[in-house]
């Protein structure tokens, strides 16, 4: 032990010697065995659906890592995914079917056998089906089996089915699909490899959780500028090179102001507009006529354009036509000739060149400095037109014209719920798409790219189906779809009363392509339009964080009518964990965890395609359940068979499918097309189309749980107009036929609704809705102030309050997770510094936050990296005491809080005697982020957030005190 004693000359310094570092002596094993085997499946700690390698040791999960080959995550894994071990072994897992014994909400249950549970469910559901099927409301939350659940609901015959899209992101999906046949959401992505300027609007985390982070890091590596538009500057917005701290709900104005600037300086891609959009289409100008504002069409219904330099009006797709973009043209050929039409582009230019959209004007509302708007417009223009990308890749367009290269305008955009969760979100999202299209950047190199199976324009999408609604009869098509005018609404004979319990596809929300799940309970409770007999929910915590006005909803779920019966008579619920919703169910069907079941991430639903690959995936049981639980999809098939749904039984009445796995393999939606696209055909050599393959699931499992096929080079851009893509897509079963996809800058269906609101066409909108429809259904992207802000006195509620997804938590699921709950066990309200100062608030103080609907008491944290009128908190951290197997006094329940108590599903009364839904009037999207508040200092000697609720009992064994995962594998 010789000491070299090199003193470091510090006052009191550490010694240094050669030391001894023979690791054997220390017993260090630097090369330990990791696991016995690795099972590759799909993560479900959130809806991003990354590939995971589950390392199993002694039959337990040792480690979960990202699958490097997987198209979504390329090997990385987020915090939630990495905490999968704690989710899978959570003490909050349900163990057996439960039958309620106490009052609704009490959490008192008796464990029952599956046979009893299924018999009971069959009785309840079967009786309603034979009597009045619409009295079943079947709604599903975070699940990814909508192609099964919707089919089940069709087979049942109820019109009342939807998934959670209505409270989630339908504005994004609908605005995108109607405008260009794609959507931000999860149906497209920025061209991370080629883009030269990236703008991201209103995103904290998003569904494409890992792809966005991977993408942002590529941009950083390439030195590409990112601009984040968001009232809050955390996460993606923190790392962006520039932050636009926009005032909530005003992005539309900001974007239209950029459009104004671009038009003013002529920075638009005219060639792109002429080729791929309806910019040249003629709009009938015949004030007062029933078709004023609709497209002028020829006798085949084809929209017309005017030939440039003449006055000939021809079908838009006539070969070689050089259409005019401005002027007035006689519609000589039309059914009633003599009238005039104006190209969309001229209407558009006039609209957006209006002085009210100048940056100096919009600044007053958006809070975005005029200089910033102007500079960003200039940067967009410069990047799009002076940094043009040319890819030497020949392709053929829909008119058969060969192009020898692909021109790119390398500005890309992404947007999510900061845009969509406002009552003006549909229009705002359209405004962003307008901007993208004007500079020619959709599905061009460096721009925003479709993820297959998208693009899927309205022409490829279904219409909402009503079906005959006869007892015991299936519906004739899918519930949800994309109406193209008032004629596609689902209304009773009177032309006013909604058919659906959530009032989707009614005058309240005509284009509600995903339904309005957030209205189901309150409508059923109000029996408006009617009451339901059975409420059947799956994977949605509707008694808590996915409802507005949570306390109110809890009451609605447990309210009784004059006869002492529950207003909502029966509630069946499937959850895997002891959530808040469980306590309100009469019958609980316990699901497996994501490592214990088959799941199907299907092209028929929300697949996992990336711009260059068509892909789908499965989950499979890498572990056997150690509880008496069943995969819900298998349970649904079982119930369907018990009720004798035509699709679910054989001729002899026996079940057609043994379980979900059997269904995944054998179910054919159309001949040769089933849930999975990979390894079809008897020998597994077909893709997309082909007869069922008995080994299909085996092949998926071997391949890591997913299937992918790379797109040919000539189909990777311009897919809206790319014949090569269309042919490939048809060949691979992505679509049935070749379909035109002309970008709809001017959205005619909206105009049709305006006409019916003007009383010009039938069905005419009811008086009560006319003003709103005329105002909000502008066929060109428009901005109007969010509704809640309009309904209140600005002085009473001067601030905006928002939630954000924390990257390391998935809604309410995370709190049962021993690791994740340490990171986010409570949530403060982040309040702008100046607001703190004027309200006398310091870090750690408590405050009353008051909205037009209620008040909550919360802990406060100061921040300056935020729009000065905006306060925010992390979403869904607050919990009800007793839920999620957490012990009494858990911080989630004592200090954590939900903003949802301040948000109402109905707007403040406007004096018209009506309570309007707090939703986007076009799509029914829940307007979570329209919330307006004021804040006051509060006393809280008990340090409890308010409101508090009586604890729910839980039917589970006590959770362990400590967790020492992996102890048996360590020394």
């Amino acid at each position: 032990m010789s000491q070299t004693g090199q003193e470091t000359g510090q006052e009191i310094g550490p010694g240094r010697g050669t030391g001894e570092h023979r690791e054997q002596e220390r017993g260090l094993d630097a090369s330990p065995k990791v696991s016995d085997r690795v099972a590759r499946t799909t993560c479900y700690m959130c809806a991003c659906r990354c590939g995971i390698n589950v390392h199993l040791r002694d039959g337990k999960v040792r480690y979960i890592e990202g699958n490097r080959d997987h198209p979504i995550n390329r090997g990385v894994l987020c915090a939630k995914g990495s905490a999968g071990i704690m989710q899978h072994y959570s003490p909050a897992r349900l163990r057996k079917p439960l039958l309620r014994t106490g009052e609704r909400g009490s959490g008192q249950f008796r464990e029952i056998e599956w046979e009893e549970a299924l018999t009971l469910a069959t009785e309840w559901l079967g009786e309603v089906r034979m009597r009045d099927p619409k009295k079943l409301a079947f709604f599903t939350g975070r699940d990814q089996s909508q192609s099964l659940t919707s089919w089940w609901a069709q087979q049942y015959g109820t019109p009342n089915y939807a998934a959670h899209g209505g409270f989630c992101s339908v504005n994004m999906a609908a605005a995108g699909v109607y405008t260009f046949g794609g959507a931000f959401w999860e149906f497209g992505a920025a061209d991370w490899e080629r883009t030269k300027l990236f703008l991201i609007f209103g995103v904290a985390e998003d569904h494409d959780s890992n792809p966005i982070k991977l993408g942002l890091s590529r941009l950083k590596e390439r030195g590409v500028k990112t601009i984040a538009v968001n009232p809050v500057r955390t996460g993606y917005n923190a790392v962006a090179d520039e932050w636009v701290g926009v005032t909530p709900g005003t992005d539309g104005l900001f974007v239209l102001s950029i459009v104004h600037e671009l038009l003013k300086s002529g920075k638009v891609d005219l060639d792109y507009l002429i080729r791929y959009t309806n910019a040249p289409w003629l709009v009938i100008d015949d004030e007062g006529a029933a078709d004023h504002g609709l497209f002028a069409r020829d006798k085949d219904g084809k929209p017309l354009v005017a030939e440039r330099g003449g006055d000939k009006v021809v079908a838009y797709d006539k070969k070689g036509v050089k259409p005019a973009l401005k002027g007035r043209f006689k519609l000589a050929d039309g059914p009633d000739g003599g009238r005039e039409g104006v190209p969309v582009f001229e209407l558009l230019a006039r609209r957006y060149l209006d002085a009210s959209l100048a940056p100096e004007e919009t600044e007053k509302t958006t809070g975005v400095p005029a200089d910033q708007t102007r500079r960003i417009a200039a940067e967009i223009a410069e990047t799009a037109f002076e940094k043009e990308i040319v890819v030497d890749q020949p392709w053929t367009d829909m008119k058969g014209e060969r192009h020898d290269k692909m021109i790119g305008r390398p500005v890309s955009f992404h947007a999510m719920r900061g845009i969509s969760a406002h009552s003006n979100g549909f229009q705002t999202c359209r405004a962003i798409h307008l901007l993208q299209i004007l500079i020619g950047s959709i599905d061009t190199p460096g721009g925003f790219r479709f993820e297959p199976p998208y693009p899927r324009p309205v022409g490829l999408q279904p219409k909402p189906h009503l079906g005959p609604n006869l007892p015991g009869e299936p519906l004739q098509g899918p519930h949800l779809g994309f109406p193209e005018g008032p004629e596609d609404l689902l209304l009773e004979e009177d032309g006013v009363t909604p058919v659906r319990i959530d009032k989707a596809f009614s005058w309240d929300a005509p284009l509600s392509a995903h339904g309005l799940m957030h209205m189901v309970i309150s409508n059923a409770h109000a029996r408006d339009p009617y009451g339901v007999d059975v409420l059947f929910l799956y994977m949605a915590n509707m008694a808590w964080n996915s409802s507005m006005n949570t306390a109110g909803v809890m009451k609605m779920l447990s309210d009784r009518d004059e006869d002492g019966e529950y207003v909502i008579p029966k509630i069946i619920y499937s959850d895997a964990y002891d959530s808040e919703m469980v306590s309100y169910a009469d019958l609980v069907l316990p699901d497996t965890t994501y490592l214990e079941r088959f799941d199907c991430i299907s092209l028929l639903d929300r697949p996992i395609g990336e711009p260059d690959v068509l892909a789908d995936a499965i989950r499979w049981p890498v572990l056997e359940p150690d509880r008496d639980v069943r995969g819900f999809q298998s349970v649904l098939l079982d119930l369907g068979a018990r009720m004798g749904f035509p699709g679910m039984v054989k001729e002899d009445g026996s079940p057609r499918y043994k379980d979900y796995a059997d269904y995944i393999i054998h179910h054919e939606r159309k001949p040769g097309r089933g849930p999975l696209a990979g390894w079809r055909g008897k020998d597994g050599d077909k893709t997309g189309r082909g007869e069922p393959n008995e080994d299909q699931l085996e092949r998926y499992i071997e391949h890591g749980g997913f299937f992918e096929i790379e797109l040919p080079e000539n189909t990777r851009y311009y897919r809206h107009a790319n014949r090569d893509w269309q042919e490939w897509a048809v060949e691979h079963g992505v679509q049935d036929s070749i379909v035109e996809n002309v970008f709809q800058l001017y959205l005619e269906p909206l105009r049709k609704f305006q006409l019916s609101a003007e009383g010009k066409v039938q069905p005419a909108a009811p008086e009560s809705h006319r003003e709103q429809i005329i105002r909000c259904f502008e066929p060109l992207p428009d901005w109007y102030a969010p509704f809640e802000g309009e309904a209140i006195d600005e002085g009473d509620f001067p601030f905006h309050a928002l939630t954000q997804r924390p990257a390391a938590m998935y809604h309410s699921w995370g709190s049962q997770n021993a690791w994740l709950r340490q990171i986010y066990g409570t949530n403060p309200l982040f309040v702008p510094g100046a607001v703190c100062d004027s309200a006398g608030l310091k870090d750690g103080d408590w405050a009353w936050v008051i909205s037009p609907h209620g008040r909550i008491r919360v802990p406060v944290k100061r921040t300056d990296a935020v729009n000065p009128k905006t306060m925010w908190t992390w979403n869904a951290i607050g919990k009800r005491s007793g839920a999620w197997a957490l012990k009494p006094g858990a911080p989630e329940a004592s200090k954590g809080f939900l903003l949802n108590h301040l948000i109402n599903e109905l707007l403040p009364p406007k004096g018209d005697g009506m309570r309007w839904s707090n939703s986007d009037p076009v799509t029914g999207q829940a307007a979570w982020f329209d919330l307006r508040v004021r804040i006051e200092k509060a006393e809280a000697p008990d340090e409890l957030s308010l409101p508090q609720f009586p604890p729910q009992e839980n039917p589970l064994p006590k959770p362990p005190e400590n967790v020492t995962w992996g102890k048996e594998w360590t020394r």
Partner: protein
Amino acid sequence: MTLLPAPSTKRLGLVIDLDICVGCHACAVNCKEWNTGGYGAPLGDVDAYGVKPEGAWLNRIHTFEVSPKDSPAQIVHFPKSCLHCQDAPCVTVCPTGASYKRSEDGIVLVDEDRCIGCGLCSWACPYGAREMDPVEKVMKKCTLCIDRIYNDNLAEIDRVPACVRTCPAHARHYGDLGDPNSDVSKMVAERGGFDLMPEAGTRPVNKYLPPRAKTSPNTPPKQSEQTESLEATGFLGWLDKALEKLG
């Protein structure tokens, strides 16, 4: 032993890019997940489902707000684990020899069998990189995933720390900071990588890359990129010419 070894030429460590860390905690949780079943005792969690849940973590993500004089406050997400200091005071204070720095690659480790759980090393660490395990009562710290980087049971490509492999934003890089030609050293040189708290005299191996400068909202458009403005009425005239050019 707890004397520091003669400085090694190989200095394995991490480079963390604050310009792209989005604060997602992925690295922290994956670290916990890998290490709780790996090196040494499990990373325990006490009162795991109770009122004060608390556990041992080797890597934690802090969030700072930075207010420049003339532009709006910004947020920087800040991951922190052991920096594997060259002059590691946590090693020399250890009375038992449990805490040591490896001579071959500079990794600082705790030999948990020798650790008496006195906590002194955690006091000596300026950065809060050491945490006592609440269940096993031994000192835990980042091992630089020594049981990954030298693990023959893993594919070559996976022989990197768990946090590096998992980071979705690629904000974490691993390599030999003693080799000026390594990727990480070059990255540090190019980006002005820096030491945390240099005044603590610990000479960390790990380096941090600073956030790049942000554009301030009030920056006016550059003269050159200023869009030449067409009068609103002139727009349609411009359109004629532009269409003509298109042919």
